[in-house]
C-alpha cells in the first residue's frame, strides 16, 4: 500500500520500506507472526506487535534479518485514516502481474485516500498518481474514471480540461468538491489556491486523527526499557 504501489500505478517514490495492511484477527496475526519469523524480522520501534495496537490504528515496524532481505523494513497496519475495513479494501484491490509474481495493491482511489496525510512528501505523490491515470486512460475514458478524476485531480490544467469535457458530472460533484466551480470556470489561479486550501484541510484532519495515537506512542517510548551503558571496568 506504500511506495511500491505508487510505482506500479505511475508515480515514483524511492521508498525504503514495504507497507502492508492486514486483518488484525487472531488467526491472521498468527500467520503474520510465522511470516515475520521466516523473515527473521524483529520489531524495531513502539508499539509492540500486539493486536490491540493494530486495532487502535497504529503501525508496527519490523526490520528483516534474513540474509536475502537483510535490513529491509516492513510496516504493518490494519487501519488507515479515511479507508474502510480490510474486506472492503481487498474486494477493491488491484492485482498486477509481472513475469515473476502477482502483486495485490490497494485500488488507486484507496491509495490516493491513504496518501492524504500531514506529510509534504505525500501530496506531490497524489498529483502524480492521478495524473498518470489520466495520461493512461484519457483517450478511452469511462464514466467511473471521469468521476475519479474530478474528485481527485490536483493538476489545474487537467482538472479544467476534464471539467470542461464533462460539465454534467462536474455539476453533480460540486457539492462534494466545491473547487470544481473554479475548474468549470477555467480559472487556473483560483483553482490552485483552492487546491492548496483543500490540502490544508486534509493535513489538519490527519493531524487531528493522529494526535491521540501520537500521545500513546510517546507514552510507550517513555515506558520502554532502556539500554543502559555498561559501567567502565574498575
Amino acid at each position, binding site marked *: 500500500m506504500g511506495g*511500491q504501489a505508487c510505482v506500479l500505478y*505511475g508515480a*515514483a517514490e524511492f521508498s525504503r520500506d514495504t507497507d502492508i495492511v492486514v486483518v488484525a484477527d487472531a488467526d491472521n496475526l498468527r500467520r503474520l507472526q510465522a511470516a515475520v519469523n521466516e523473515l527473521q524480522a524483529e520489531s524495531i*520501534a513502539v508499539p509492540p506487535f500486539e493486536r490491540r495496537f493494530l486495532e487502535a490504528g497504529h503501525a508496527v515496524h519490523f526490520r528483516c534479518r534474513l540474509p536475502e532481505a537483510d535490513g529491509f523494513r516492513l510496516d504493518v497496519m490494519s487501519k488507515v485514516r479515511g479507508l474502510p475495513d480490510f474486506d472492503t479494501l481487498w474486494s477493491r484491490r488491484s492485482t498486477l502481474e*509481472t*513475469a515473476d509474481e502477482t502483486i495485490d495493491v490497494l485500488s488507486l482511489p484507496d491509495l490516493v485516500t491513504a496518501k492524504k496525510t500531514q506529510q509534504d512528501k505525500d501530496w506531490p505523490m497524489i498529483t502524480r498518481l492521478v495524473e498518470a491515470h489520466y495520461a493512461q486512460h*484519457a483517450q478511452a475514458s469511462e464514466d467511473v474514471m471521469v468521476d475519479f478524476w474530478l474528485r481527485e485531480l490536483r*493538476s489545474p490544467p487537467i482538472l479544467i480540461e476534464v471539467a470542461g469535457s464533462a460539465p454534467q458530472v462536474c455539476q453533480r460533484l460540486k457539492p462534494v468538491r466545491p473547487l470544481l466551480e473554479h475548474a468549470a470556470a477555467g480559472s487556473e489561479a483560483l483553482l490552485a489556491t483552492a487546491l492548496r486550501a483543500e490540502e490544508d484541510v486534509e493535513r489538519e484532519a490527519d493531524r487531528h486523527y493522529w494526535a491521540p495515537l501520537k500521545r500513546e*506512542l510517546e507514552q510507550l517510548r517513555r515506558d520502554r526499557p532502556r539500554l543502559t551503558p555498561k559501567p567502565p571496568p574498575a
Partner: protein
Amino acid sequence: MIDIRSLVGDEWAEWYAMTPAQRLEESSKLWQTYLELGGSLDPEPDPQSPFYDPEEWRALAADGRAGVRLVRRGGI
C-alpha cells in the same frame, strides 16, 4: 486534449506510459544501484511522520552506513 508531455515533461510522460511491470523493473534497477553504492535501508528522518522518533533515528544512524545524502552542493 491536453498534451501531457508538454505539461509534465518528457521524463514523466515516459514514466506514465510504461506498464506497471516496466516501472517495477526500472525501480528495481535503481534499488540495485543504490544498494551497490552502500545506501542504507533505514528510512530518511521525517519529523512530519506520526511514527517519527528522534531517539530511534539516532540509534539507527549509528550503523555508519550511507543514506545517500547530499554532502556537497555545487552552484546553488
